[in-house]
């Protein structure tokens, strides 16, 4: 079996979508790894009311954690110069204002860019909504960072999402361990493939038809 990108490499590739001066909100799981690779000058937002914070407190330095700065996932943060604290009304104005780029994980993304990422089942109590729907609707750009297929090998890029939706037609770019795919008006545009993979091989693991972009290339970091 050919090699796929590991989680850190997916995060690394997703991080290249951000540049100095961008404002970013990173979702849980894989997207949160992007923080390790994001270029200087990118400013992070946390939905619970913090902008411009410093690095996460790592697991082995928990005793250094300040009590009063946590992110939306409950992780401790370090303060940084130029940080701002605010309430959630202001925070969700930020999120809805189109001034943020968000990198989110996904269970499924549809051909039209529908996103399902909060609940892997049919029971509404089987997942948590949080601020993900707001981010998916309000962000300037929604980038998905995820594995291309489920653990069972089934496509996560699908014709129609089966799981409960987070938002309709919201995804702009999908970055996986196999490919970089743009959600374009004409359909899903395959822009990059993992080293050693062909467009056909990626298509075989993707439910909707992919349009191979002119200048298709290998994922570079």
């Amino acid at each position, binding site marked *: 079996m050919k090699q796929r990108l590991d989680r850190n490499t997916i995060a690394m590739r997703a991080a290249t979508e951000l540049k100095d001066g961008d404002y970013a909100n990173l979702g849980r799981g894989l997207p949160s790894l992007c923080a390790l690779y994001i270029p200087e000058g990118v400013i992070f937002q946390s939905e619970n009311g913090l902008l411009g914070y410093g690095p996460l407190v790592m697991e082995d330095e928990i005793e250094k954690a300040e*009590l009063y700065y946590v992110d939306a996932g409950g*992780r401790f943060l370090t303060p940084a110069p130029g940080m701002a*604290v605010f309430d*959630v009304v202001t925070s969700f104005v930020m999120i809805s204002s189109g001034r943020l780029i968000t990198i989110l994980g996904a269970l499924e993304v549809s051909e039209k860019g529908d996103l399902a990422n909060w609940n892997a089942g049919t*029971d509404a*109590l089987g997942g948590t909504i949080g601020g993900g*729907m707001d981010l998916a609707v309000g962000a300037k750009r929604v980038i998905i960072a995820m594995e291309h297929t489920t653990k069972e090998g089934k496509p996560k890029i699908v014709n129609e999402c089966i799981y409960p939706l987070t938002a309709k037609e919201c995804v702009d770019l999908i970055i996986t361990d196999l490919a970089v795919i743009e959600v374009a008006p004409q359909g899903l545009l395959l822009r990059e493939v993992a080293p050693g993979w062909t467009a056909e091989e990626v298509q075989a693991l993707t439910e909707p038809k992919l349009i191979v972009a002119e200048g298709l290339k290998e994922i570079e970091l």
Partner: protein
Amino acid sequence: MKNKVFASFDEAVADIPDGASIAIESWGAPGTAQNLVAALRRKGVKGLTLITHNFIPTLFSEEEALFSSALLPQLKRLITAVVGIPQLGAGAFVKEYVEKGLEVELTSHGVLASRLYAGAAGLGGIYNPVGVGTILEEGKEKRVIDGKEYILEKPIRPDYAFIIAQKADKLGNLVYRGTFRVNQPVMAMAAKVTIVEANEIVEAGEIDPEHVVTPGIFVDRIVEIPQEGYGTAKRSKELVYRLGEIEIARKMLFR
């Protein structure tokens, strides 16, 4: 000057009746008005509607920390954006109560914030694009405005709000600390009666007018958290260290 300072948490919640609606922030132990939650448990009122962003099980014994979920047996209705912790099976811990009749209304965090704002501002409803095509639109009016779909969301105007502040002056002006500000300012504005537990109560004039986050008009009752009370810096810090030692909590913190 009208006295807003109450001597005990029990006195501060004494008039809350069965069936009341209460907004409580619950962003971790230092961001929850735990002493008021404890008092409401002691009072034992039933049929409550709880509005809380995070409804998550307490990872500690009740003597150590109380989240808003400590009121679970007293609830009739729950409005929340986060029910449970994904790694712990999300909302599974409320199922027993749902079977016994608990109503759960799920929302998103931003929609909750804007509904609380709408309640505070006396609006009749707001058209929010968040939730279109999701379970949030079920049973609600949808409408296309200028080519875009919106859901009509109703304001939330709780009977009470339980607030934890870093500092309160005797007129009720509040400041918070760090990310534990969260929904508290808008909950204080939306509620009919706002009850505050503060780490410190100071004289009027000791908070710079420019730094007040919640102006005193929105605050009805204030109780100072005693040294041994829930939510003090010392106690919260101890919990943080304990949290670092609990496997499941590590997964929460560093997932």
